């Protein structure tokens, strides 16, 4: 960030096109409407078209796209919970719950793969909500501490008691259609999550959720049962991650202890912080940038996690508002120097 020259200060103003297209958009022409809707449409079209580019991108980058979609969902879910003041350091709990329950529904109940994914991820998010219910009285740091501990404990319990396939995991999870089908399922889920959750947060319902983050004592004093709202927020907010876990389980045909691995906790967190905490789209953009980079770093093994973490600290310190918010500001506003 440049500092102002002596005797000047920075002034930020909304661009005229933003004012016209937002406030008097009835009069706006196509150009102005496109200015508003353009970025959203472009992102949506990109998501929908990418699976069709398979002959040009090759199988490998299509798989990366699938993983990126899963991580984008996880990052969006992280950002949603952050908006309620529930900062999770253990998103792999949701991811693993979705994966394992999908595998169980598919193999024990012999359900078709699509049903297994949907039922399994729903059951996964509900299970997580119930698991976290006793600790929802906690806030801030204490909640984060518990979420950090839960996936660790789960992988230990699975390793020690050999339930759920023990260290080898559950193998033979049936595949869900073709790669493109899995991709489009996740694209649909991602679009629903980004736009739906953002809309939810902008509604009156979201007002209460934000208020819980900002001052939960005040919310309780207004006669609102904070615990119940947080429980609902966890159930809704963990669903995207748990769906991502379910779909990836059907993709790999196996779900194991690695579903509770640290990567799935750190990556969504890094993505959301890098992209811009507070907005759903920012989290998705962050993950879309991070996953291809992390694929390029695949040869370095666990050094990737180190890289995420270094990036996370750098992003927190250097660009606290996030890349997405930075870009959005540039898009909607311009800056100039004015004499003091």
């Amino acid at each position: 960030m440049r500092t102002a020259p002596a005797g000047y200060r920075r002034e930020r103003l909304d661009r005229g096109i933003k004012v016209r297209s937002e406030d008097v958009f009835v009069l706006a022409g196509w150009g102005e409407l496109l200015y508003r809707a353009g970025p959203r449409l472009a992102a949506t079209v990109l998501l929908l078209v990418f699976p069709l580019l398979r002959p040009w991108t090759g199988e490998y980058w299509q798989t990366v796209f699938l993983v990126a979609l899963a991580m984008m969902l996880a990052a969006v879910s992280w950002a949603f919970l952050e908006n309620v003041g529930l900062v999770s350091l253990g998103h792999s709990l949701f991811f693993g719950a979705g994966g394992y329950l999908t595998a169980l529904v598919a193999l024990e109940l012999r359900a078709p793969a699509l049903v297994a994914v949907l039922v399994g991820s729903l059951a996964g998010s509900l299970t997580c909500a119930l698991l976290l219910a006793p600790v929802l009285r906690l806030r801030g740091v204490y909640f984060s501490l518990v979420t950090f501990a839960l996936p660790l404990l789960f992988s230990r319990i699975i390793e020690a008691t050999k339930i759920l396939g023990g260290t080898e995991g559950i193998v033979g999870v049936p595949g869900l259609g073709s790669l493109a089908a899995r991709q489009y399922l996740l694209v649909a889920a991602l679009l629903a999550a980004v736009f739906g959750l953002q809309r939810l947060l902008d509604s009156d319902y979201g007002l209460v959720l934000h208020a819980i983050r900002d001052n939960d004592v005040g919310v309780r004093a207004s006669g609102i049962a904070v615990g119940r709202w947080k429980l609902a927020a966890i159930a809704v907010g963990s669903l995207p991650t748990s769906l991502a876990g379910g779909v990836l389980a059907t993709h790999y045909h196996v779900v194991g202890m690695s579903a509770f691995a640290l990567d799935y906790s750190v990556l969504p967190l890094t993505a959301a912080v890098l992209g811009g905490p507070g907005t759903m789209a920012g989290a998705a953009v962050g993950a879309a940038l991070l996953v291809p980079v992390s694929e390029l770093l695949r040869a370095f093994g666990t050094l990737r996690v180190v890289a995420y973490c270094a990036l996370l600290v750098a992003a927190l310190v250097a660009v606290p508002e996030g890349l997405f918010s930075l870009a959005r500001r540039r898009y909607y506003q311009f800056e100039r120097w004015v004499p003091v």
Partner: protein
Amino acid sequence: MSEVLSVLLYGLVQAAVLLLVALGFSVTFGLSGIPNFAHGGVYILSGFVCWYLLRKLGWPHLLAAAGGVAVAAVVGVLLYWLVIRPVRRLVLAEVIATFAAGVAMLELFRWMGLVTYEFNLPPVVAGSVTLGELAVDAHRLAVVAAAAGLGLLLWWFGRATRTGLALRAMAQEEYTALSLGIREDFMATVSVALGSALAAVAAVLVLPLGLISINLGYDAMLVALALTVVGGTERTAGLVLAALLLGVATVAASVVLGPHWSEVIYLAAIVAVLAVRPSGILGRLKELEERV
């Protein structure tokens, strides 16, 4: 009868181990409100520093241990100025930043391949002692003594030294403390460095009980979490009591139910304490407000 005694004795040893491991985290959090999630990373880092000085450079044991503690304290200072200070007062950003720093340290070690059998530390005291009918190696008794000693030392530090009093003043009434001329950054640096040094002390004493492994760093965070929630941060006594309860409970669980159950105890304890006494077994109302 001797089984009960052995559970109690090894429970006591386990309690000392837990206390040592959690002390650094709890001290930093209690004194300056900084949740230092890099604690587990510093713990393993100092273990490796000590190992390197001892095995590779051939320093005497005591000197190598002191080197480990010193490096940890320096890392604590760096951690405060580079990672924590830019996001100070944004509690959740503090959590995320220190968590990232800790994971980065641990995973860096994993990548460097420091996971084989050669990575171990020698016991502080060799040999074993027979207490009645139970044989215990002297190192475990030394751990108990060191935990008790450190607990007392910290208690004295907080009540009898100017720095200790200043730190407690910051924790209790920040604005009054600031108006009395207590320097905030200095105090926070001291608290993080002290917590990191305590992690190193724990590493030197506890790591010889097994191999140095990366997962112990994550375990250390788990232990610190469980003890902090169960005991509360305001009083060292709460932490000691929590360590005793959890230590005996985990040893008893692993004897009665099987070895893998001990880790479930932590979670059960956290949930039970949160449900019944959210401010911790010895916590007071002030903490209750902050937590719940």
